[in-house]
């Protein structure tokens, strides 16, 4: 077993220190060391997007980040999307549009959609579909997800 490393970072606005093994991914540290189990492991190799988080505001697969890499950086997970117990508009619209069935992909989709609207508050349907192309959903056929995201974008405008 390798020597554990102490990682000091900010997760969902809170300064955090945790111990990890060097080869532990950020996804593993979030779920197994920090109890933040909202981020899901779908594929574990960057294909499905279920584990997406924001790293310094940039959308990344947390399964393709090593935990020690986040030293001194800022991470936002699905648990950091709702503010003060109020659902984020994306979460609300996902409910209204029934944009989920089994729910495994949903945290990743919401984090991805937030990253999209942060960069491009008024995306076209094509923009949204292309941006979300790295998130896989086997239940909804994507249409309800895209409608929810566009509904939020229109609401903001």
């Amino acid at each position, binding site marked *: *077993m*390798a020597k554990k*490393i102490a990682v000091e970072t900010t997760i969902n606005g809170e300064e955090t220190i945790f111990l990890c*093994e*060097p*080869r532990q*991914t950020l996804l593993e540290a979030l779920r197994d060391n920090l109890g933040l189990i909202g981020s899901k492991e779908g594929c*574990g*190799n*960057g294909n499905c*997007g279920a584990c*997406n988080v924001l*790293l310094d505001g*940039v*959308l*990344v*697969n947390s*399964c*393709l*980040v*090593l935990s*020690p*890499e986040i*030293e001194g950086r800022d991470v936002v997970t699905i648990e950091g999307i709702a503010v003060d117990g109020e659902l984020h508009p994306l979460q609300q619209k996902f409910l209204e549009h029934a944009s989920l069935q089994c729910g495994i992909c949903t945290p990743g989709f919401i984090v*991805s959609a937030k*990253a*999209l609207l942060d*960069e491009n508050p008024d995306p076209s349907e*094509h923009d949204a579909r*292309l*941006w*979300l*192309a*790295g*998130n896989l959903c086997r239940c909804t056929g994507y249409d309800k997800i895209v409608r929810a995201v566009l509904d939020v974008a229109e609401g903001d405008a």
Partner: protein
Amino acid sequence: MQAIDYVAPNSVDEAVSALAAGGASARPLGGGTDLIAQLQEGRSDLDTIVDVKRIPELTAISIGGDGLTLGAAASCHSINNNQAIRDGYPALIDSTHLIGGTQIQGRASLGGNLCNSSPAADSIPNLIAHSVICHIAGPNGRRTVAVEDFCTAPGRNVLGNGEFLVALEFPVPPANFGAAYLRFIPRNEMDIAVVGAGSSVVLSDDGQTIESARVSLGAVAPTPLFVQEAGDALAGQPVSEETLARAAELAKDAARPISDMRGTIPQRKHLSAVLTQRTLRIAIDRARGTKTVDELGRLNGHG
């Protein structure tokens, strides 16, 4: 599961020392989209990871009178959002917009794409079209290699033990320069190229004559191919469909693909010609200043 050591040096010299200390089983970590996936799948025997992203030079993007220098670990996302690159090197965005999905682009770098040395890598034909120079650091100091000489076999390249890629240097484009990259995939996005083509041209001031050109192909040989004969055949020729078709035939002749799950030899030969001709047309339009990156995005299904 095998334990590994993780180090994050702050300078090129420290990284060289860390790689030397780790020996053959030490590897530099850029965006990790290939390396960490390989590690997770047990396909890599590395035991020391040297994260190079804390070295300012490795993630820096500098653009100016000396051309463009991209730190080897600068992410596709940081390139996509750089207006000076979009304006000055629009063809580069053709590649950075279609390597993986959004979240892969948040981490993946062109340097990493090059060092992974896949024959189907989406950035390498584009880098060849741009005459990129690779800056390498190692135990014996620094050296440079032309990008078309970088890859030596599938997954292999010229980097020796303890060496790593520091930066990609794009020379200042001559006046009336244009380039483009296109790939063929059977879906709209998120796939590996069946064939990729990167081309660039330098036109005369009146835009009617090709002064020089470079053509490169991906996924049709064990390494990305620099098809020098196609570029040579274009030099000094008038801009015409006949001229471009001749270069396309030379590209097709140079392609030596295999048949696999993604495509057959005849299909890949055919695509080599088609994509060469299309990228040359776009490169010419860009050299004349008549095509924007966003228009090309639509051609690639990414608008």
